[in-house]
């Protein structure tokens, strides 16, 4: 590489970029940071985009009155099992092998909500020592929807959430009989419902994937974050590589690869329609010029029948060109450029020697993958993602007798999240199933003789 182009991921919230807004409910929203516009987060409030400009991505804000915000520490507490509100566990506080919390005396009088919660956490009194008197929170809930609506009207702006929580605490009949932990969990759940806070995240491939997993996992073939990370690792993706990609996740994999390549290299997107589906890419902030330079697309007809598909373009002589009317000439140039582009992409594909084949497709791999092998360089990985294991089992069996493939491997990677309250660690009671499977192998050049007799003569 002589020019060494480079691209850096934005770290600061700026006009013109995208962002993912994460709300206390964990709901997410993709926005464009347009100057002078505001964003409506429904029950979490409205804020002006200009208010958040200049902060680093990852910042959490509280919505104030008049569309203003103020930057704060963190939105919400660390992982607490949403499904783990069972009584037995609550009783487990006696299990705490950790030193007792600092005495309540040392704690200042709580002002902010998070301080209030901290205060409650440190308060060692008024918590029932076992679960004998605990009644299910759901049924003991005494605050009606009407109460909440009323509060929304009377409390002003930013304080609505807090006022509701205070009221909830007061009105919860058995709140003080509850153990500390269940109080915390209760507060957290209420917080998720009413706090006017949000976090601004960069539209990284991980955040985008998370966004789509929650919104419609089928759009990204039910791929988990760890499957995506493994796909990139097994593919040995790095700056300067030339990759052959089949991506039925709407371009998410292309986006993730671009993130790793940082401006250098090329992605040849092989697709089965007239145009590739890159709907996910529209949410990213890669400069168009970089995309044009790095991402090429070719359909499988052009890829597998390049000679028939090359555009035969009859160039005009300078004399002929001169005679054309201006709109005809524009049309000519457009056609010429189009033909050149198509032919260049076809030439590029034909030249082969790709540094990896990355597949996330529902096409039948047993017949499709062998067609791609000749386009790969030696010692280069082929990695195929599938939502289901069975198609990869079939591919693996076939690969075992293909001498052009070395070490075909079928694996999965699952991520098990934990509740992260010190002293009460356990895996979350429920989690998403699925996440997909990965096939990988290396393209090699077998010895002719081995192929023939399995042994040299």
């Amino acid at each position, binding site marked *: 590489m002589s020019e060494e182009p480079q691209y850096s991921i934005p770290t600061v919230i700026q006009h013109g970029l995208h962002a993912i807004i994460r709300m206390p409910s964990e709901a997410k929203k993709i926005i464009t940071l347009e100057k002078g516009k505001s964003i409506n987060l429904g029950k979490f409030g409205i804020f002006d985009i200009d208010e958040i400009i200049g902060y680093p991505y990852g910042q959490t804000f509280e919505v104030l009155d008049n569309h203003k915000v103020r930057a704060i520490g963190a939105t919400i507490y660390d992982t607490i099992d949403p499904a783990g509100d*069972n009584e037995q*566990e*609550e009783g487990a506080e006696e*299990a705490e092998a950790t030193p007792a919390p600092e005495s309540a005396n040392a704690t200042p009088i709580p002002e902010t909500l998070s301080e209030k919660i901290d205060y409650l956490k440190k308060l060692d009194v008024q918590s029932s020592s076992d679960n004998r008197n605990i009644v299910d929170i759901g049924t003991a809930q005494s605050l009606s929807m009407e109460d909440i609506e009323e509060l929304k009207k009377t409390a002003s702006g930013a304080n609505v959430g807090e006022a509701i929580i205070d009221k909830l605490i007061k009105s919860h009949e058995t709140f003080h009989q509850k153990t500390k932990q269940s109080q915390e969990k209760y507060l957290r759940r209420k917080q998720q419902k009413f706090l006017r806070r949000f976090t601004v995240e960069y539209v990284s491939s991980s955040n985008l994937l998370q966004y789509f997993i929650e919104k419609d996992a089928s759009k990204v073939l039910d791929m988990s974050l760890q499957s995506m990370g493994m796909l990139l690792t097994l593919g040995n993706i790095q700056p300067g590589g030339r990759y052959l990609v089949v991506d039925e996740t709407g371009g998410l994999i292309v986006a993730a690869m671009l993130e790793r390549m940082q401006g250098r290299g090329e992605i040849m997107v092989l697709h*089965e329609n007239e145009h590739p589906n890159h709907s996910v890419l529209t949410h990213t902030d890669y400069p168009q010029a970089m995309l044009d330079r790095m991402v090429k697309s070719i359909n499988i007809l052009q890829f*597998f029948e390049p000679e028939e598909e090359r555009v035969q373009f009859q160039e005009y002589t300078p004399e002929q060109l001169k005679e054309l009317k201006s*709109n005809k000439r524009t049309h000519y140039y457009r056609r010429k450029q189009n033909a050149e582009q198509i032919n260049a992409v076809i030439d590029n594909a034909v030249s082969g020697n790709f540094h990896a084949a990355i597949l996330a497709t529902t096409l*039948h791999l047993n017949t*499709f993958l062998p067609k791609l092998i000749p386009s790969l360089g030696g010692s280069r990985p082929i990695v195929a993602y599938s939502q289901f294991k069975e198609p990869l089992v079939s591919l693996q069996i076939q690969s075992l007798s293909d001498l052009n493939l070395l070490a075909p491997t079928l694996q999965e990677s699952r991520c098990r999240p934990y509740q992260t309250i010190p002293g009460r660690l356990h895996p979350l*009671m429920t989690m998403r199933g699925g996440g997909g499977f990965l096939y990988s192998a290396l393209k090699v050049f077998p010895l002719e003789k081995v192929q023939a007799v399995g042994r040299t003569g």
Partner: protein
Amino acid sequence: MSFLGYKDIIEEGDLILAYLNRDTMKPIVINATETLNTRFGSFSHLSMIGKKYGTQIASDKGYGYIHLLQPTAELWTLSLPHRTQIVYTPDSSYITQRLGITSGSRVIEAGTGSASFSHSLARTVSDKGKLFTFEFHKPRFEEAKREFEEHGILGVPVTINHRDVCNDGFEIEDVELNATAIFLDLPSPWTAIPNLPKVISSDERVGICCFSPCIEQVDLTIKALQEHGWTSIEMVEIQGRRWEAKQVMVREADDAIERLKDVKRRKLEGIEKKRKYYSDNGIKKEDLVPENTDAETEEQKSQRMKLLEDEQEKTKVSKTEFNPFGRGLRIKEGEEGYSWVKVSKNEGEIKSHTSYLTFAYKQPAFVKK
């Protein structure tokens, strides 16, 4: 005894489970004068009497169906409103097998909780064994006791006590518990472990399982077990997974290539038709899409539109017949004319953790004669 033994025919007074769908089972006691009302219709108990267990019946009005099942401990667990933590089948079946609980075993359970595991244990210890179950939460104790009674297992084999076993121990007046297996589903099992020696068998090995959601509880439990002479301590987690099987279409790359060729052919055909139309009618492209539409009069525009319509009509290309993947059609899973591959997937949300299971054994002191 609905939960022990087998019955073929539904009779007055039987407890049955009306199976509505995978998520809904309703326990009912057959009473010829009553009717079961569900969102699938009403079903008079009378229509159930005399039917074989397992029969599907239609509602009184003829629409809507349910199955009539004989309850088992496992179906009972599935039918429970999840009022408190339930020991699910993957855990309960492992604990039972691992502790060697069989017909005739004498088992201690604390606490009773939803009584779901109690039912499973009662089935296994059978009328020849004993289940001593303890619950310290009064409403739960009463609910469980009522259920045991209704299910014909109170007394034989189930004995239930309202008791805080951590503080008050396991002894029952005038009864030698002599337990051979212990199951502790308590917030702090380590406070109950010291109370066990008085109630366990003194002439055979006794097994224990402590069921705790948090790892820190396991830590304290292990220490208490060691301190009180329990050995072979092992801790495991059981992970049950359900799979849903389905079929997905086999999509051949060659078919996709053919589709693209077909699209291309149609495009060329359209261009060809247009060219022919223009030459046949002596029309120039400029007539249809003029360089400057702003300068066009209303009349010119209307005439051009008519020409355009005519062109569209005359140069129409037939829609492709080649649709290998049934795009745009409603294809039923497994439909003929397409290839299918069988696959499996987890439910959307899986139970990733129930509790940690700590096992240990106690060997009786023995002096050789």
